[in-house]
C-alpha cells in the first residue's frame, strides 16, 4: 500500500526539499553579510523577470533536459550513467564534423544531419562502457567516469591539433557556416511580430528537447523495448527468466542514453557557440544526474527539474555577474539544491509519509 498520495510524493517532497535548500542558502548569504531577499529577487528577476532572462533560462534548461533524459533512460535499465559529460562532449564533436564537412544550404537540412552526428558520437562513446559492463562486468559508474576524462583529452587533441584554424589562439573549431545557424527563439518570436528575448541563446533545439521528452516517455512506458528496459532494471534474474537478454538491453539502453546526452550538442554547440569550443559541456552532464533524480526519472519531471536548474544557472549567473555575492556561493546554492532534492530526499520523504499516515488514521 502506498504510504502517501502520489501528488505528495511527486510535488510536495521536491518542493519542501527545495524550500529547505533555499532556507540554508539564505543563512549562508546572511552570514557573508548580504540580504537573501535581495539575492532571491536578483535571481528571480534575472532568470524569469524578463524575456531576456527566460531566453537564457530556457537555453540552459534545454541542455539539462537532454542530459537528464540520458540519465533517466539508463536509470530505468538499472544503469547509472555518469558519463553524460563525455558523451555530450563527443556529441559536440559529431555536430562539428557534420557541419564543417558539408556546405549545408539551410539549417533545416543541417539540423537533422547534425542530430544524427551528435547522437551517433554520443552513443558510440557510451557503447564501450556498456559493452564492458555487459560482457566483462566492469562497473558502468567507473567506466563512464573514466570516459569523461578520455573524452576531454580526445577533444583537446582534436581541437588543438586538427580542427583549430591555423594561427588561432583559441582551441576551438572554425565557426560554422552562416546557413547552419539555428533560428533563435527570439528570431522566431520576431516572425510573429513579437519582441522577445533579444540576443539570448535559446533556440529551436528547445523544441527538439520537448519532443525528446515525449519520445522518451513513449519509449519507456509504451514500447516493448521500454518494457524490457524497465524489467531488466528492476530484476536481472527476472529479465533472464522472461527471455530478455541483459547484454542486449545494457547495450541498447546505454546507446540511447549516450545518444540523448550527445544530442545536447545541437543546443550548445550548433545553437549557441556556432563552433566547437573546448569546454562546451560545462558540467551539464553532471547536472543531468541531479535533474533526473529530482525529476523522479520521469520525462515530465525531468522537464520541470531542468527548468528549475536552468533558473538556478541563469539566476545564479546574474547574481555573480551583477552583485557582490561571490560566484563560489552560487555553486554552494546549486549544490544545496542537488543535496536536498537528490541525496537527502528521504530526509523529507519519511517525516512526510509519517504525517500522511497519521492523517489517514485519523480520517479512517
Amino acid at each position: 500500500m502506498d504510504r502517501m498520495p502520489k501528488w505528495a510524493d511527486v510535488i510536495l517532497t521536491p518542493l519542501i526539499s527545495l524550500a529547505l535548500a533555499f532556507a540554508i542558502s539564505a543563512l549562508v548569504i546572511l552570514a557573508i553579510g548580504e540580504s537573501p531577499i535581495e539575492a532571491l529577487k536578483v535571481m528571480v528577476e534575472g532568470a524569469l523577470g524578463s524575456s531576456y532572462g527566460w531566453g537564457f533560462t530556457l537555453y540552459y534548461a534545454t541542455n539539462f533536459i537532454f542530459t537528464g533524459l540520458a540519465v533517466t533512460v539508463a536509470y530505468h535499465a538499472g544503469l547509472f550513467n555518469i558519463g553524460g559529460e563525455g558523451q555530450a562532449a563527443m556529441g559536440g564533436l559529431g555536430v562539428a564534423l557534420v557541419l564543417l564537412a558539408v556546405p549545408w544550404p539551410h539549417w533545416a537540412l543541417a539540423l537533422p544531419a547534425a542530430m544524427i552526428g551528435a547522437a551517433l558520437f554520443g552513443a558510440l562513446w557510451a557503447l564501450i562502457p556498456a559493452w564492458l559492463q555487459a560482457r566483462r562486468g566492469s562497473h558502468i559508474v567507473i567506466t563512464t567516469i573514466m570516459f569523461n576524462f578520455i573524452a576531454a583529452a580526445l577533444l583537446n587533441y582534436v581541437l588543438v591539433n586538427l580542427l583549430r584554424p591555423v594561427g588561432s589562439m583559441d582551441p576551438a573549431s572554425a565557426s560554422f557556416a552562416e546557413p547552419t545557424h539555428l533560428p533563435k527563439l527570439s528570431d522566431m518570436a520576431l516572425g510573429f511580430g513579437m519582441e522577445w528575448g533579444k540576443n539570448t541563446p535559446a533556440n529551436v533545439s528547445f523544441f527538439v528537447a520537448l519532443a525528446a521528452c515525449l519520445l522518451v516517455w513513449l519509449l519507456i512506458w509504451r514500447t516493448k523495448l521500454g518494457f524490457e528496459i524497465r524489467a531488466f532494471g528492476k530484476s536481472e534474474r527476472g529479465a533472464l527468466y522472461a527471455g530478455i537478454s541483459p547484454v542486449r538491453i545494457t547495450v541498447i539502453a546505454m546507446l540511447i542514453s549516450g545518444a540523448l546526452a550527445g544530442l545536447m550538442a545541437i543546443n550548445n554547440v550548433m545553437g549557441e557557440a556556432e563552433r566547437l569550443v573546448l569546454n562546451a559541456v560545462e558540467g551539464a552532464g553532471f547536472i543531468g544526474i541531479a535533474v533526473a533524480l529530482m525529476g523522479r526519472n520521469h520525462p515530465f519531471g525531468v522537464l520541470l527539474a531542468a527548468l528549475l536548474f536552468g533558473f538556478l544557472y541563469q539566476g545564479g549567473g546574474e547574481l555573480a555577474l551583477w552583485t557582490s555575492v561571490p560566484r563560489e556561493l552560487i555553486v554552494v546554492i546549486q549544490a544545496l539544491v542537488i543535496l536536498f532534492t537528490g541525496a537527502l530526499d528521504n530526509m523529507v520523504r519519511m517525516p512526510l509519509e509519517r504525517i500522511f499516515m497519521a492523517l489517514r488514521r485519523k480520517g479512517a
Partner: protein
Amino acid sequence: MTAQPEVPDGAPAIELRGISKAFGPVQANKGIDLRVSRGTIHGIIGENGAGKSTLMSILYGFYRPDSGEILIGGNPITITDSQTAIRAGIGMVFQHFKLVQNFTVLENVILGAEDGRLLRPSLSRARGELKRLASEYELQVDPDALVEDLSVGHQQRVEILKALYRQADILILDEPTGVLTPAEADHLFRILRGLRDEGKTIILITHKLREIMEITDNVSVMRRGEMVASVTTSETSPTQLAELMVGRKVLLRVEKAPAQPGAPVLEVRGLRMVDAAGVERLRGIDLDIRAGEVLGIAGVAGNGQTQLLEILGGYPEAGAKIEGALRLKGQPLPLTGSDAGARRKAGIGHVPEDRQVEGLIMDFSAWENVAFGYHDAPEFQSGWLMDQSAIRADAQAKIEHFDVRPPNPELAAKNFSGGNQQKIVVAREVERNPDLLLIGQPTRGVDIGAIEFIHKRIIALRDAGKAVLLVSVELDEIMALADRIAVMFDGRIMGERLPEEATTADLGCLMAGIEPGTIAPQDAIPPAALHVPAEGA
C-alpha cells in the same frame, strides 16, 4: 548480562493483551490476546499475511504496537528495540539466518554480546559456555568452523546457540524447517523438546500442520490479523486447524483421477552442467516426462533442481558448461544459445522457484506482469507500441479466472499477498496451455487456500493431456501431486518411486544420498551427506 526479573509463580512466560498494529489502512494485528505458558512449545499458525510476522516483530522490538500491552513473566514491558527484547530473555531465530558467513561459529555467537574491549576473554568464556550448551541440548557444532562451511541445519543450530548464549528464556523460531531435510528437521525437534524439558519456552511459527501436530503443546491460529483460536494440540486435528486458518472447509488431499500417461513430451538425456565456478551441478540426468502426467522431483534445496529448471527454461547460468541432449515432442531442443523467450514459443511454460526475483517484477503492475515473458506476443502489439488495452483485458480475464485478490490489475505485484502473487504467475503460465509446464516450489510461502487452488490447476493441466515437471522441497506436496517421483541428490537422480509405494523414510534416504538396501554408500558421496543418517540413527 542483567539478571532475569523476578517471575511470579504461575504467570505465563509471555502474555499479550489487545495488541494492535496498523500500516496505513492495513490492520496487520487486531486486538491480539495470547498466553504462552512457561516450559511449553507453542505453535502459531496462519496463512501468509495473517499477521504472524508482524506480531513476532512487535515482540522482538522491530515495530511498536499502536495499542495493547506485553507482559513477560507477568511484568509489563515496553519493547523498544531488539536489545530490550534480548534483555527480557527473548531470542529469535529468523527464517533467513543473520550470520556473518566468513566468521567462525564462536565469533558469530559472541557478535554483539562481547563484554569489554578485548575479544579474548569473551571468546574463551564463550567457548566454555558453548561446550556446556552443546552437550546439554544436542547442539554440537565445531566452534572454530567458518559459518560458510556449515550445512544449513548446523547454521540454524548456531542461531539457536546465539540466542541461548544471550540467556534467552523464550525462543521464537520462524518457519525453521523450510530449509531442512526430514532428518535434520527431526533433529531440530529433538533439540526443541530438550530445551522445553529444561524449562525454556518456545514459540514455533510455521504453516506446516504436520509439524504443529508433531511437536507443539498448544497452538494458536491467526487469520487476517486476528487470533481466532488457541487450543491444546492434543485436542485438535489438522482438518480443524486448516479450517480455522482459512475460515472455511479445505481439502488437504488433492483429489485426482489416475494419470493417463501418453507419449514423452520432454526427453532429457545425459544432462551435465558445470557452473562458472567449476562446480559440477548436474552429473548426468536422464528423465522422461510424458503427456498427461506429473513428474515430481523431490530433494533438499541445492541439489541441482534449480539448475535443471534453468536449463530447461532456457536461461542457464552464464559461463556454465552444459552437455547432454533434450528432445521436446520428438524434436531436438538446443541446450544453449537459446533464450527463455524461444522456450516459451516452443510450448514450455515455467513457474519459477522464486516468484519475487524471477517470476514477477515486484514494482510492475499486475497487468504488466501478466504480459511478462510474453510481452512480444503478437496480440499484445499495436504497431510500434504495446497494446495496453489488449494486455489489460487479458490480465483482467486471468485475474478473474484465477480469483486473484484484490481483482485490481493496476495494483503493483508487491502489494499482493504471496498466494495471490503466485496465482498471477501460475495464471500467466498455465492459461497459455503449454505442452510442458515447469513448476518450481509452486506453493512456497503460499497460504492454504491458494495452495488448494494451485494444486487443482496443476492437476487440471495434467488431465488436459499436458506434461508437468514439478520441483518441490515439500515432500507432502510431491506425494500429493506427482504421478511419479524422482529424487535428486547432488546433481543426479537417486531413484524413482511411485507415490503409492513410497514412504517418507525411503524418500528421506534417497534425499540424503543413500541408496536404500545398500550398506556402503555409492561412490563419491560427500561427507556432508554421510553424517546426516548417522545423527538420525
